[in-house]
């Protein structure tokens, strides 16, 4: 069962890669990249939900990944893949320290600290001279040979990471995380180090967020502190909420739908804030389990009817 999902997932990612390779460059390919990055960000947010915490520092980790990749590219002139990985690792290292300190708290405290952390990291970017200050960094280009294949590359990386996150979720480690969400005292009582498990979970999510940030730096070529405020976490939350957080496909469904709809809505002159705000409020009030939850319920009802 587990293997079959992985194989079919890999097949779907391969198909998507072929489809993006056939696309001609333009607004469409950019949109594909943005959707893929949004999916990965939302998946990172969802991964921390396995331990039952809402990680609003996701935006900070995306930003660290973007700045890490940006510095490695423009200042240190490292090879492309190493830069991307470096961005992810920066996010992991900061996530390790941040998680070690803050994961002693839980629930509202962790949520609010993540929120404050995002704002402070953003402030630090504006203060640091060699990070470009308020205006940010420019000229983060992917290598020449990837120019035409960037959307394919982005989709492939995101796809592989999603499958990896899924595999981790279904592994022993993932099950420990879910057990912590349900009752951390029980997990502690069988001798598992709850605190370090939580920190590890956060680090995995931080890596995914960091890679998402690095990819976004290469896709947009420009990064600035304003891109990585808490609004980014809020948007990721909107994708997750509309898609449904119980299903690993939730972030995918939500991000695809909302980014597409938002690009249509913006074309008609509506404000981005109002659109995402509406999407969150309506989906929370009308379909608490998101789109994937609705589909699942519809499916189960049909099966019940055919059985009766």
């Amino acid at each position, binding site marked *: 069962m587990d293997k079959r999902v992985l194989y079919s997932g890999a097949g779907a990612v391969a198909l998507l890669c072929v489809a993006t390779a056939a696309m001609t460059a333009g607004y469409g390919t950019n949109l594909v990249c943005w959707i893929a990055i949004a999916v990965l960000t939302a998946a990172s947010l969802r991964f921390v939900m396995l331990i039952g915490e809402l990680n609003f520092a996701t935006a900070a980790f995306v930003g660290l990944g973007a700045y890490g990749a940006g510095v490695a590219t423009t200042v240190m002139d490292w090879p492309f893949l190493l830069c991307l990985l470096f961005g992810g690792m920066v996010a992991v290292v900061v996530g390790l320290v941040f998680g070690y300190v803050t994961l002693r708290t839980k629930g*509202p*405290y962790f949520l*609010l600290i993540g929120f*404050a952390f995002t704002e402070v990291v953003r402030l630090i970017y504006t203060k640091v001279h060699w990070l470009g200050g308020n205006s940010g960094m420019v000229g983060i280009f992917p290598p020449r040979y990837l120019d035409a294949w960037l959307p394919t590359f982005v989709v492939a990386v995101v796809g592989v990471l999603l499958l990896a996150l899924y595999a981790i979720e279904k592994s022993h480690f993932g099950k420990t995380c879910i057990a912590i969400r349900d009752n951390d005292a029980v997990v502690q009582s069988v001798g598992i180090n709850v605190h370090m498990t939580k920190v590890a979970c956060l680090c995995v999510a931080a890596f995914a967020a960091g890679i998402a940030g690095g990819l976004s730096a290469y896709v947009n070529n420009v990064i600035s502190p304003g891109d990585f405020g808490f609004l980014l976490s*809020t948007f990721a939350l909107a994708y997750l909420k509309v898609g449904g957080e119980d299903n690993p496909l939730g972030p995918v469904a939500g991000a695809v739908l909302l980014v597409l709809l938002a690009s249509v809505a913006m074309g008609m002159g509506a*404000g981005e804030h109002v659109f995402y705000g509406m999407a969150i409020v309506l989906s929370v009030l009308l379909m608490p389990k998101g789109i994937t939850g609705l589909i699942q319920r519809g499916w189960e009802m049909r099966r019940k009817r055919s059985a009766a």
Partner: protein
Amino acid sequence: MQTLLQLILTGLQIGSVYMLFSLGLTLIFGVMKIVNFAHGQFFTLSAMLVAVLVPWLLMQGLPLSAAFGLAVLGGIAASVVLGMLLYQFAFRFFQRDLAGSFILSVGLVLLFEGAFLHYFGGAVRSVPPIIDGTVSIFGTAVTLQRLILCLVAFGFTFALYWVLTRTRLGKAMRAVAIDHEAAMLQGIPYKRIAFHAFAMATFLGAVAGAIMAPISTVTPTVGADYLVKGFIAVIIGGLGSVPGAIVGSLFIAFIESFGGYYVDPSSANMAIFVLVMLILLLRPKGLMGNG
């Protein structure tokens, strides 16, 4: 000495607004166990209405004090009505649901921020000074207006304290905050208490906005800055704790006023964050939180 006194007074002035703001947050959390990000929107709406209505009422030929009084009443009333509507049609369904209520409130923040930008424009507004003159406290000059608004804020804080400790409603709120099921067994109508607490919290947020408008500038996104500070104050003090919110707010305000003078404002903001991390490391539930 002169500078020290000046900085202390500035700290108290900023702190008084933070205090009213974070008291609303902590009250809602205590009674309903929800994290309400939309609290900043009540603050913004009331501040914005004051900033818009005062010049408009002056144009209608009203004297300054009447114009200000009417604008403040209008701003607070509009915020409280908005708060009641949001409770009735949204937050009511998410009591004691931390993630759900938080997500809902974040959606509302985006929605209202977009709406405020649309209706009020992005311009920075300010309110003309209402009360002229300065007073001298131990040789330090303070504008009378700031002093009076600061005193009003402290007055409301004491009023809340009195309500919570001396009245039936306040005692019921505290009982609900400690254990809502036990409170219901004692015959305390939880839903009505929650509604009162939410309305009271929006009222406090709206008063904070109306007080802030004349002493600072008003933009449609001003609530977000206060929201970050307000939540940090509440985390430092402990979620749900009223004295904690007061201590946390003053703590932040003093760091801001001293740090802003001796170093620079954004370093002061970072220092606040580092201190919060340290406090959480030592006391994961805040200085005065217990549950």
